[in-house]
């Protein structure tokens, strides 16, 4: 009977116990966090108008896709929310939102442009490229767990809109970069 030992690049070998090989599940997101390629973009509370893009994040990396992991949406007024996408636009308008590396031991910076109250996208007219729609209650909180299923190449943007006017909103987008 031949015996094989499974060895990784670091020299570690896989354990076999009770007739089972030990494995550890690591998602693309977890891998990106470990390697300092996962970020959070989170806007501060501000007073928003109707049909307002409350947070926009554009991927500026020519070599890596930006995968969207989670979106958190809050508003003080009941409203429809719309997650939509666009490309070839200049993200501009409100306050700059800097991506924060989720791995605080990494010095990587996000190759992205992000603002709240974005006025640079034209998708808010008709929302032809809408990905997810729904309703958020006054002072409600919507969490969309996407596990990286929205993929943005270079120069593509993800936007979160609220269509009804309110006095205070927040939005957070969690994403990670993966080599194409």
């Amino acid at each position, binding site marked *: 009977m031949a015996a094989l030992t499974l*060895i*990784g690049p670091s020299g570690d070998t896989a*354990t076999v116990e009770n007739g089972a090989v030990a494995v550890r599940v690591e998602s693309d997101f977890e891998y990106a966090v470990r390697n300092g390629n996962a970020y959070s973009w989170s806007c501060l509370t501000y007073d928003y108008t109707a049909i307002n893009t409350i947070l926009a994040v554009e991927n500026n990396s020519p070599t890596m896709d930006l995968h969207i992991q989670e979106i958190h949406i809050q508003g003080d007024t009941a409203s429809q929310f719309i997650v939509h*996408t666009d490309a070839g636009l200049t993200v501009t308008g409100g306050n700059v939102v800097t991506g924060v590396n989720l791995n605080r031991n990494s010095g990587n910076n996000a190759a992205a442009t992000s603002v709240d109250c974005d006025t640079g996208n034209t998708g808010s007219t008709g929302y032809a490229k809408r990905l997810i*729609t*729904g309703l958020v209650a006054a002072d409600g909180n919507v969490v969309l767990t996407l596990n990286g299923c929205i*993929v943005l190449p270079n120069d593509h943007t993800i936007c979160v809109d609220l269509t009804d006017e309110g006095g205070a909103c927040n939005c957070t987008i969690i994403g990670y970069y993966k080599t194409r």
Partner: protein
Amino acid sequence: MARDFAEKTSLIGPSGDTARVEDGCLIVNPKSAFTQAVEDGWAFSWASLTYNVTAADTMFALENVSAHHILCIEKVIISVSVAGGSVCPVFTASGITLTVTTSVAGVNLNRGSGNLCASMTNAGTIEVGQNEAATSWLKRCYMPQCVTGVPYIIDVGGAIRLPNDHLIAVDAIGDPAAANVTFIGWFEPI
């Protein structure tokens, strides 16, 4: 039992990457059919805009018109705005001609892909008059109680598979003043 030889071996992929082993564990990254479809550009989202629903309306219906692909449903996201909320039957049907009120185009989730679904689906359809209520939504899969302003997210995980001429739809038993539905799914070759 005596062993003929002992050998240390590594798992190497076509790209030359070697599988990692850490703390005695082989590191694995399970990839679902949905994730693969996203990567290949065959996963789409169909999302309706808010509209004022009549009681027992079909708020949103999505039909697969491809003869070559199964449409697999990954997620259904339902929102309503009505006092007390509403039960929103999620059901399937087949052989029905949808009455299109507002056509909804599928949007590719991989924005780097040029694949279109318009040629293979009847897109999403806000559709009225199925009269499913009369048969108690015979082919119902879920009967969620949706609360006002709180999206109800069903992680179907591909467990609903629609062949050609089959559809998935969501009704509202209540009378919401506003409602949205999003379907996320992928196409799989037959």
